[in-house]
């Protein structure tokens, strides 16, 4: 997808580059992030690509009920979710204990809500070298293991691909900086006895209307925060209209997805009492306190629910970052789009 997105924005990037070029970087520090994001062309094992392509396809065509468990250094305990996928309808997901109503994400969303899937296969291919690392076993079934390696030869992800169904049944994401591992794994997987998705009480709304390359280029030329890439090898994927005059920018390296919401204006922290103010290194958790007065310079607000979120003021805009990426990546992103200094 990234390749497609890059192709679509390619011409516009040439136009926009003048707006993001060196003379303006000083006033728009986020523009410098562009140079950090160019993926390196790495060789891929065709057999690995075939397996991953099959997994992406199976994720859309398979009908199944499952329980998945996710573990992360940022989460105090494993998360267990009951999910159900029906082709052409989507995926419902809910806590296994029923403590929260399930939601349905349609299959035609840009990113399908399949917890262990390849939502951005082409972005992954563009950023990592992919090869078959061996064989494994998940759910007492044989699986092929594919590794994603970065330009330094460091393995940043492993995928377990069920040999019989083709589904990706386990995924490990390894933070190349800290070595911390986030894992998501099927712990049960069954063919549904019923065709109904009774869990779907709410539906994830589709993203807003897409902004094409010309629109993005125009925003850049007018000084909107709109980096072509972000630190950590995150490439621009797409942009769309968001709530209340915000621009929603999407970045990914094929493993993590980052949403940046940009609104012109001044951040009113008093209106966000549920968020904690974080200090120290950019966005680093700790030393938290309640949000203070409106628009305190350099302040970053943070919450982990419903998705990990950071909000800050930068260059006349309010930036809202949402991502499940490692905190080290978040810190680098905030550094690239720095909060206004005191």
């Amino acid at each position: 997808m990234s390749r497609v997105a890059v192709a679509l924005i390619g011409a516009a990037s040439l136009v926009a580059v003048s707006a993001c070029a060196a003379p303006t970087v000083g006033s728009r520090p986020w523009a410098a992030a562009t140079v950090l994001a160019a993926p390196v062309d790495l060789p891929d094992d065709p057999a690995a690509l075939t397996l991953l392509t099959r997994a992406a396809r199976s994720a859309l065509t398979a009908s199944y009920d499952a329980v998945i468990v996710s573990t992360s250094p940022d989460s105090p305990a494993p998360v267990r979710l009951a999910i159900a996928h029906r082709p052409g309808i989507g995926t419902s997901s809910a806590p296994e204990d029923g403590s929260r109503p399930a939601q349905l994400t349609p299959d035609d969303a840009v990113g399908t809500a399949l917890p262990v899937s390849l939502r951005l296969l082409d972005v992954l291919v563009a950023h990592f070298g992919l090869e078959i690392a061996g064989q494994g076993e998940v759910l007492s079934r044989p699986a092929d293991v594919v590794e994603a390696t970065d330009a330094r030869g460091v393995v940043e992800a492993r995928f377990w691909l069920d040999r019989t169904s083709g589904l990706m049944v386990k995924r490990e994401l390894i933070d190349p900086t800290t070595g911390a591992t986030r894992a998501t794994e099927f712990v049960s997987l069954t063919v549904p006895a019923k065709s109904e998705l009774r869990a779907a009480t709410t539906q994830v709304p589709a993203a807003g209307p897409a902004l094409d390359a010309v629109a993005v280029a125009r925003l850049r030329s007018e000084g909107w925060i709109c980096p072509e890439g972000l630190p950590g090898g995150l490439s621009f994927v797409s942009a769309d209209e968001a709530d209340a005059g915000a621009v929603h920018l999407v970045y990914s390296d094929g493993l993590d997805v980052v949403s940046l919401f940009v609104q012109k204006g001044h951040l009113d922290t008093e209106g966000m009492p549920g968020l904690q103010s974080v200090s120290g290194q950019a966005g680093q958790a700790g030393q938290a306190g309640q949000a203070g007065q409106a628009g305190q310079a350099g302040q970053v607000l943070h919450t982990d629910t419903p998705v990990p979120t950071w909000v800050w003021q930068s260059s006349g805009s309010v930036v809202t970052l949402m991502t499940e990426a490692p905190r080290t990546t978040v810190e680098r992103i905030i550094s690239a789009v720095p909060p206004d200094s005191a």
Partner: protein
Amino acid sequence: MTACLGRRVAELADGRLVGSELERALAHVSVCASCRDALEIQRSMKARLRGSNGPGPSDSFIARLSKVPDSPVRTDPSVAVAKSRARHRRRIAVAGASTMVVALALVGGASTLAQTATSVPVVVPNLAAFSAEHVSVSGSLPEGGSARAHDADPTGTRFQSAGVSVSYDQTDLRSPEGLQPP
């Protein structure tokens, strides 16, 4: 059969292959199911990015954004795009009229922007709406802080909340090969 296309699948989907390279790629796709599948996925993704699932890029949206002042000067601290009900009531008493002007301008009243060109809106991001948008593109599953394994009931019935029942024709059910009921 020639070697699989690998990365060239994306180039083929983008229409960047020409001449004999294009002919070889198409010949290979015609006999290779894996590359055919990969090409189908690539084309599907490309169609989505082109906005085939929704309206095209909004010129009016961009025009509206262009009119939002970016001066750091803040002339009306009571103006907010979104706020809690309590704060809203409190501030309406002080400056309700100006609040309405800028709020309307930001959500669609472009004509009113001219009247507030020197005002910088005070923004309270709508995190609920934003998180829904993030989920829609990332496929992430919000945890909500309530699905921890340590407090989950392993015997609990899944999908207890009897909500909307989504039904569809049984013939739509397709099980992946080898995926058997327990």
